[in-house]
């Protein structure tokens, strides 16, 4: 079943078409990857799906419902999480607080109980911290729990982004180039992790440049070029698609 769909979605900035008429579906429980050369509009597509940009045309459906008009935080509440390519952590906050913040959309405590330390707050905090520790464990971040996010190494920050995005068990997580800046060993670990995330029931939509990662774990691949979708299919189908080869290698004349 398609959990996330776009229908002819597009946006232009100052006359430049960043994304043009892109339709794709992400099936529930799968890893769907979006690839394409630099500037193909991949991150823009993510921003459209997550609600950071308002499309100039087309719609986004989530679990069969049109969410095009919803704001980012409302989409998150529905179970649509994301990470950022250029890392947007809460740098001065601890690793713990970063991931706790990730639970915002599934926790309830109101400002008054927050300030008065009412029992419902204490309970919720306790449960939240437990969830955070589990997630940190999964991403090998447990030992950094009290460190400031901004003081972590680049690779760890990338992991922390993922932790913050999946801690509330979203239905879909959009991962924007989680492998950039990682070495070969880490790459393997990352691939394993993404598969584990999928297997735990979270649908993954992935933007990635590292082709070995994409080819080994994707269930389906969408290829963008100059803002338009030029191919989609299984890794094998896409790898043999002439249009894709042309986009990546340039046309031999």
């Amino acid at each position: 079943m398609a959990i996330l769909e776009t229908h002819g979605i597009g946006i232009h900035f100052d006359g430049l078409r960043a994304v043009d008429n892109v339709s794709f579906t992400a099936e529930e429980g799968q890893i769907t990857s979006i690839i394409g050369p630099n500037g193909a509009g991949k991150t823009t597509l993510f921003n459209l799906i997550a609600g950071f940009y308002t499309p100039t045309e087309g719609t986004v459906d989530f679990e069969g419902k049109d969410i095009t008009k919803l704001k980012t935080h409302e989409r998150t509440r529905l179970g649509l999480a994301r990470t950022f390519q250029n890392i947007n952590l809460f740098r001065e906050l601890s690793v713990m607080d970063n991931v706790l913040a990730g639970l915002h959309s599934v926790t309830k405590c109101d400002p008054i109980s927050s300030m008065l330390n009412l029992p419902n707050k204490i309970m919720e905090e306790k449960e939240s911290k437990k969830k955070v520790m589990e997630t940190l464990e999964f991403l090998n971040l447990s030992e950094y729990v009290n460190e400031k996010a901004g003081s972590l190494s680049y690779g760890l920050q990338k992991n922390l982004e993922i932790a913050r995005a999946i801690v509330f068990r979203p239905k879909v997580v959009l991962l924007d180039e989680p492998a950039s800046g990682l070495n070969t060993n880490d790459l393997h670990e990352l691939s394993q992790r993404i598969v584990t995330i999928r297997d735990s029931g979270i649908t993954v939509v992935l933007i990635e440049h590292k082709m070995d990662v994409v080819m080994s774990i994707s269930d389906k691949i969408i290829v963008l070029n100059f803002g338009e979708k030029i191919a989609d299919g299984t890794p094998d189908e896409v790898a043999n698609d002439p249009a894709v080869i042309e986009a990546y290698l340039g046309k031999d004349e």
Partner: protein
Amino acid sequence: MTLFNKVYKATRIWILLAVALTLPYWVPNNYYLQIFCLGMIFAILTLSLNILSGMTGLFSVGFIAFFGIGAYTSAILTTKLGFPVPLAMFLAGVLSSILSLTLSLPTMRLKGMYFAVATLAFGEIMYQLFLNWTAVTEGTKGIKGIPALELFGTSFRSYSKFYYVILVILILIIMLARNLISSRTGRAMLSIRENDIAAEAVGVNVPQYKMISFLISTFFAGIAGALYAHMVRYVSPESFVNAESAAVLAMMVVGGIGSIPGAIVGGIGLTVLPEFMRFLGNIRMVLYGASIVLIVIFAPRGLGGLIERIDNILSGKQSLGVQKKQQHIEGEE
């Protein structure tokens, strides 16, 4: 950890409390006690501003307006409408909070400098209102004869008694602010300060939480204003000129942005110090300006950062000279 560290850690809060409780008995005279009370009221105000600016990153340069609204509300309710003082003080907080919506709702989209300037404009408009709405505020004449607080048959007219009222409210607000920091609401505010894009991504309704931050901080600011009105028992517009907003900002920064102990030290320190420097005459304000610049340059985390460092050394968490990781709500760079 040495024995000294352990003893220090176990007793520090009690020592502090003992000092606070006995203060009126060893302060040399009433005048100094009055200044100290005023300092504590400004500590509350600085703490309020810290919720807005330190935690949520909404930089206000017109914050004194809410202090003024609180002071005038309580003054008017008690002198003209005969409200009991405690109720009037509470309503002062409520009205300050409600009026904050007239600032927060339309300026939700503004960022950084633009927002700061909007708060400045708001502060000036409020000041003009205090000054010109003579039917209600008595204009430049001010409101005289504001009653002192009376509770359970005791009058808190003398500074040595009113001191305890301020102390209790200060401690209460410190506790509320501490609880807030480690809560869902507080983290939402911190996340807005840190990175509003990421805040949205984790599901924080950014405008809503900015508004909540405003409501909370201006409620406390209003209470602080009411405390001021019932301590001095006279309010007039010049106590709420925009230069006072700059003074509160200075208290926050000198104390250390986002730091609770810093807000206390900044608020009390910058109120008491100029008084102690009175013998210097006009030079003291020159030194005051210069020291703000110096502290900003040389002590980026303010006095609060310094206090925490000493505290860490005394309690053995940190050895001399080594900078360890900082408490998470500190710093904003």
